[in-house]
């Protein structure tokens, strides 16, 4: 078994770094070429054949996330990736140490993201506690997924690491509706 303290400490450092992410700071802005590439790489890494579209405001973002035609293939692909990573990470680190380290990450993300989402929404004239919590839930999930990818010793090209980079750069990947992936 690898040196537990040394490597799971990496997740501790990841948790500590969450405060420096630009949570939701760039939502609504035009996508840069680099962000488009990250989005396309994310979709390719999940083996999803979909186009990419930017979303310009919070209310449209809400509509996308509640769209009855949303495509669960994306959520299911993420869930399959999560299960695979969890199995691998458990094998490497054992249940207890892994869960403690992941909990540190989600606690920190939970603490940070609601305020950031609320401020970003307020900047656009939106005061909606439920929508801010939805955004915070998505961000916390992304932090958890990225931590799991780190614990399972994946590379930077893993979809969860790409997705987290998008969040850290101030974006919110909203999901797949039909064959279009929406990035806020």
């Amino acid at each position, binding site marked *: 078994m690898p040196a537990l303290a040394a490597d799971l400490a990496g997740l501790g450092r990841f948790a500590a770094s969450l405060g420096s992410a630009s949570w939701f700071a760039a939502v609504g802005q035009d996508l840069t070429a680099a962000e488009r590439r990250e989005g396309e790489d994310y979709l390719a890494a999940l083996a999803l054949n979909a186009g990419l579209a930017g979303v310009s405001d919070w209310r449209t973002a809400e509509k996308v996330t509640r769209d009855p035609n949303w495509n669960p293939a994306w959520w299911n692909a993420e869930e399959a990736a999560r299960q695979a990573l969890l199995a691998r990470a458990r094998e490497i680190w054992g249940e207890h140490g892994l869960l403690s380290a992941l909990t540190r990450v989600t606690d920190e993300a939970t603490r940070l993201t609601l305020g950031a989402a609320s401020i970003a929404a307020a900047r656009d004239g939106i005061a909606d506690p439920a929508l801010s919590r939805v955004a915070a*839930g*998505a961000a916390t999930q992304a932090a958890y997924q990225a931590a799991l990818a780190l614990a399972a010793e994946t590379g930077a090209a893993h979809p969860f690491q790409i997705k987290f980079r998008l969040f850290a750069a101030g974006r919110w990947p909203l*999901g797949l509706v039909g064959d279009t992936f929406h990035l806020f």
Partner: protein
Amino acid sequence: MTDTTKPDTAKLQIKTVEELKSQPEEYRTACEKLVISHAINELYGARAFDEPAVALAPHPYAKWLTCRVAMEEYGHHVRFFELGREMGVEADRMIPEKTSKKPLSIFDYPLKTWEEFVAIKLLADLAEILQVEDLLHCTFHPLRNLARMTMPEERFHAQFGLDFGAELVKTPEGKARLQAAVNTVFPTMPNFFGGAKSRNNEIFRKWGIKLRTNEEMRDDYINRARDAAGKIGLTLPEVAVAAA
């Protein structure tokens, strides 16, 4: 033997965990019981209902909101757990799988559908609000402050039940499914408030830790639950009132 003399709760205001240590054993034990109960049940609730509900939620909005709610419930556990540790309660007494103390019977309910989860948020989180409300003027201030801190989130969780309930009842099929879930979930709720002649409740009130009897809370709960269900055109099964 228990001292039945009622203390002057207007004067009894325990501001810190340090002050608690010099209080009578009955008072300290009563505070511990409440903290342990909340620590266990908040964690158990998050595991039994909120986490599994993410998979049942109908769209990403509901999934992420449920993720957030699960984390908030887990956060409540952490706050009560930390207070318990400060009070000298052993960690194992506040973790469901390590203690012999049973969680509330509502958690035995095997969650199968999104409608059941919405009904649980609507009805069980309302019951939780009543329990936390009763601590808002608690003579043990660290517990009172914790209740005040968690209350806004508890209210949001009950509102979650109302909001998604309102979404479900827009179609006759959705309304029928939600009503069926309410009919299943509600009969377990009145027991949430404990027995009519609870010795624990008597002690809690004697020391000003809680304000109301179990029967008063249960009656209030049933009225408020009926109002909440009525707001979205649902009814409560009669059997639950009889069970109370």
